[in-house]
């Protein structure tokens, strides 16, 4: 049950955004898509869930062309959680998660006991039982994101796409969301902003710059100071996480470049 992108290129408004993308997400693995703003992470993901139509290349799900499947059939296999979004209409949490059942239903099908059971279970898995009847718009960012994950679970797909799911969340919710997703028995492809967090949770990562994949592999091989400078144009230190041994980024100040690094400096007040 792998997800394969083969030679994928996408144009938007006549401009090539990503070209010749090859990514394989093996069954049950968590693959991270990394890269600076505007490098094409979202574009690749949106080509998978049919917002953009690729110019060349294929998206294969167990070897079957995903984009030639009916939209509903595709949505039963792949669910998406994007950045925390605002919804103009006032849905309850239960209704929000029930919307995840859309691809399983015909025009006049009513919600049956199976749907309600699936929805209740999904809400339970993200630990939002006590929010079930709350209005979605009154939730905090972290709670909203967990509800959207519950919606993806209720969709019943075995593949999950995450588009910067931890944006605008504080560190507790960032960890919570990724821990939750990594604990699922799902094949996951996630665009992530924070390289250290990505290294902590991903089985492998692809680093993207200017619409092409620069390198891919296990986090330890990809996330190096040299690669970060190459892709992001940023000067960082990469150390080993004391517990997990995964690469961890430490930002540096360029204005202090004259100072020797090993010299202890007075701690600067945090703004």
């Amino acid at each position: 049950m792998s997800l394969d992108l083969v030679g994928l290129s996408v144009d938007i408004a006549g401009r090539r955004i990503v070209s010749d993308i090859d990514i394989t997400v093996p069954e049950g693995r968590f693959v991270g898509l990394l890269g600076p703003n505007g490098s094409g992470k979202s574009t690749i993901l949106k080509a998978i869930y049919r917002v953009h139509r690729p110019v060349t290349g294929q998206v294969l799900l167990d070897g079957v062309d995903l984009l030639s499947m009916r939209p509903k059939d595709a949505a039963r296999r792949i669910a998406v959680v994007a950045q925390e979004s605002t919804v103009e209409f006032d849905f309850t949490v239960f209704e929000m998660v029930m919307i995840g059942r859309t691809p399983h239903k015909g025009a006049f099908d009513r919600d049956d006991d199976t749907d309600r059971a699936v929805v209740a279970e999904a809400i339970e898995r993200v630990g939002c039982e006590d929010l079930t009847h709350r209005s979605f718009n009154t939730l905090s960012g972290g709670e909203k994101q967990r509800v959207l994950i519950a919606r993806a679970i209720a969709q019943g797909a075995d593949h999950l796409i995450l588009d910067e799911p931890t944006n605008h969340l504080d560190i507790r919710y960032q960890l919570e969301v990724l821990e939750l997703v990594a604990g699922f028995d799902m094949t996951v492809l996630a665009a992530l902003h924070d390289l250290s967090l990505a290294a902590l949770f991903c089985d492998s990562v692809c680093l993207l710059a200017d619409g092409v994949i620069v390198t891919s592999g296990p986090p330890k091989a990809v996330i190096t100071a040299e690669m970060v400078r190459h892709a992001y144009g940023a000067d960082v230190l990469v150390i080993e996480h004391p517990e997990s041994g995964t690469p961890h980024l430490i930002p540096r100040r360029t204005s202090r470049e004259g100072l020797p690094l090993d010299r202890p400096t007075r701690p600067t007040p945090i703004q």
Partner: protein
Amino acid sequence: MTLGIGIGSVSLSPRAVWQVIVDHLAGHPRNTVADAIVWQIRLPRVLLAAVVGAALTTAGAVVQVLVRNALADPFLLGISSGASVGATAVLLFGAFASLGIWAVSLGSVLGALAAMTAVFLVSRTRRQLAPTQLILVGVVLSALFESVTSFLIFRGNPQATQSVLFWLLGSFGNANWTQLPIPAIALAVAIGYQLAQGRPLNAFAMGAEPAASLGVDVHRLRRNLFIVTSLMAGVAVAVSGVIGFVGLVVPHIVRLMVGSDHRRVLPVGVVFGASFMVLGDLLARTIVAPQEMPIGVITAFIGAPTLIVLIRRRPYLYGATQ
């Protein structure tokens, strides 16, 4: 509805009303005054009001989801102003005079279609319909059409101007059995189509991209629903003039009552919109009897305060809390 038929310049009891209807359905109408009033005048009028009210409500609810904007209404795409141009041309200059009673309707349908096509063509970028662009183009072209209407009124004779004004504010006064079936059936079919889209509409309320990820064919749904709602608005305008406020406010009132799940909003909207319009028409006929008030005046007078009360009681409507 029985009330709407019973009350008027001659009042009839609900029993008398149903007596007439049952007689007619049974195939042996009686030749009484009550029969003439109910069957010939009031029943077609109430039926038309009900179907137009229901149609404007569902069309309004759908358009608000499509453009994800609480201020949208079915006339968003320049439909009312386009129809006004057509109808004004007919009323003032006697275009299509050979068509008799159908002339104004045809004029406004043609005007509405022309406006709709113009808005679609101008706002089309590649093969997609961008909601924001659609709203802007709709607003701009509406202003243009309105000035054309004003120009026509300015050039026309004063007496005809009176009837144009009355038409612009909406009325069900012209309802009769010959004219009723075609628009009523068309609107009923369109309402039926919209009722079937409740689930995809809920997904669409999440935004176009989440809807795509939920297996909704976004481009097709958006295109079909825009065309259907525009045609509904065009037909409604053709038979009853421009009745503002219903398509904007009634969907909100319904959402405040039953929440945002469109599988509830649309059916409840059908019932509520129909009742709202029938009652509005009843008031329009009776308040300043024997004269008739334009129904557009009534709908705004009832709708606006109602909505304000509801909004103040439940302030989280449409992200107002953020």
